[in-house]
């Protein structure tokens, strides 16, 4: 019983944070048709911003969240402008997915190397956003984890509202569904693409603040979240927001169950094993469809 509760709690926490990081990748894939390999860097940068605000400047968590959001928004926009936008006009002449996979990966290499130069290879402890914990049926749930889950869920909800209700949110979905038609409506794609990537990066940056507090800030702190987000988006089917959400919690569950039952070291191999199986039987993920990866 207590194992089940532990698994469920952990599923909620892990699934929410995966969802937050992965939903940005889905947003980018749906709109720009690229797999953004720099998303992990944004998690890493979010962690360092949190460390800078909370430890160096000794300021409070809200400032850290806002600063991380702003910093990764700007860097995400910048990444799009240098690694994707210049290729946009040649979209049809090249293997756009592969080329942007490589260029965003190149940016990620540079970001983590720069972080290594600036902050050094050692892990930096980030204090929890909130301290204390609550007990649920005998299982400890730290406020930090709870805050992480709640913030992630709130942000994902806010993203959903933004996409459903606002002018720019509708424009993002319109571009994802029919680029030509959206342009004839007057949607400035030259501005919309970088902003979309900025927004997605900012979500990962927020995730980075929590992950940094959960673990630590380090130049490689984004690698694992990137892999996990990749697994989630592909498991859920690229470009499908609802698929991403299901997949985030499914992956969170698999991982939690693996941690609780067979131990920490086995979690990633189990995940990869599951992915191998899923891709063998469902080549486009749970909800994906190659021809209509739409938001």
């Amino acid at each position, binding site marked *: 019983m207590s194992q089940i509760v532990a698994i469920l709690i952990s599923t909620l926490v892990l699934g929410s944070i995966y969802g937050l990081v992965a939903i940005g990748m889905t947003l980018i894939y749906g709109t720009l048709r690229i797999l953004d390999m720099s998303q992990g860097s944004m998690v890493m940068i979010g962690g360092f911003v949190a460390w800078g605000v909370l430890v160096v400047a000794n300021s409070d968590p809200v400032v850290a969240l806002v600063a991380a959001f702003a910093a990764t928004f700007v860097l995400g926009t910048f990444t799009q402008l240098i690694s994707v936008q210049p290729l946009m006009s040649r979209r049809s002449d090249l293997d756009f997915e592969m080329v942007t996979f490589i260029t965003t990966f190149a940016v990620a290499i540079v970001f983590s190397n720069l972080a290594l130069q600036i902050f050094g290879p050692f892990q930096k402890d980030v204090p929890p956003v909130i301290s204390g914990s609550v007990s649920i049926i005998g299982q400890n749930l730290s406020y930090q984890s709870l805050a992480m889950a709640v913030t992630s869920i709130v942000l994902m909800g806010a993203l959903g509202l933004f996409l*459903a209700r606002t*002018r720019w949110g*509708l*424009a993002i*979905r*319109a571009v994802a*569904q*029919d680029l*030509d*038609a*959206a*342009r*004839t*409506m*007057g*949607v*400035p*794609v*030259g501005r919309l693409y970088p902003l979309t990537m900025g927004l997605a990066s900012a979500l990962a940056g927020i995730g980075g603040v929590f992950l940094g507090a959960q673990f630590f800030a380090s130049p490689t702190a984004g690698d694992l979240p990137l892999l996990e987000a990749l697994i989630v988006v592909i498991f859920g089917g690229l470009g499908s927001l609802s698929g991403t959400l299901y997949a985030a919690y499914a992956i969170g569950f698999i991982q939690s169950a693996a941690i609780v039952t067979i131990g920490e070291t086995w979690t990633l191999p189990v995940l990869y094993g599951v992915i191998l199986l899923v891709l063998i039987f469902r080549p486009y993920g749970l909800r994906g469809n190659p021809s209509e990866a*739409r*938001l």
Partner: protein
Amino acid sequence: MTDAAPILDVRGLWAGYGDSIVVRDLDLSVGAGQTVVMIGPNGHGKTTFLRAVCGLIRPVRGEVWLAGERVDGRNPEAIAGMGLVHVMQGDGLFSDMTVEENLLMGAFPTTSWGARQGALERAYGLFPLLRERRGQRARTLSGGERRLVGLGRALMREARILLIDEPSLGLAPVMIDTVYGAIREIRERLGTTILLVEENFTHIGGVADVVHVVEMGGIVRSGSLEELSNDRTVVETYLGSL
């Protein structure tokens, strides 16, 4: 022809995809309040012409003037921002968005929320069917309903000129009448300047001020609908039948 400067003025336009040029040296002008119709068989460059005018493809040569400003070479969002509204072939609806969301996209350049809601009410007033379907996803609509959403969306913002690409394409005859009823409504009630493309004369009665016959990417005959449809050579040579 009106005396004032034309809303749309196209001079010596060449356009196509890659190496294949489909529009060859085409001249055309549309005056304010006019409805100009281009008629011609499939594959003779009408759709390509519209796509070149609205900026979706870059013309190879020639000039496009919109309300006295040269716009060829600009991107489609900039041209759209100048008041050119394009109802694309096959509607160009956002299939996974609802009818209302599709309509709101038509008003994207309007930044004020209130103004967009006003435009929405106006579109619903003109086409009450859209209000009934407002929450439905575009992909679940019938062909005729989709076309009406496309037209309604085009009315969501002030149009200096409205380009409509084959509104009768793929529709049942009853629906075609409804769609043309809507176009007539737009023309008469709103006085919108329209450039319309069709495959034949059948449906454009009572709509067209000027008709151009397009063949092989150029205009071969022009005149009023009456003149042209009574001209046996035009009908037989270019259109096969009425």
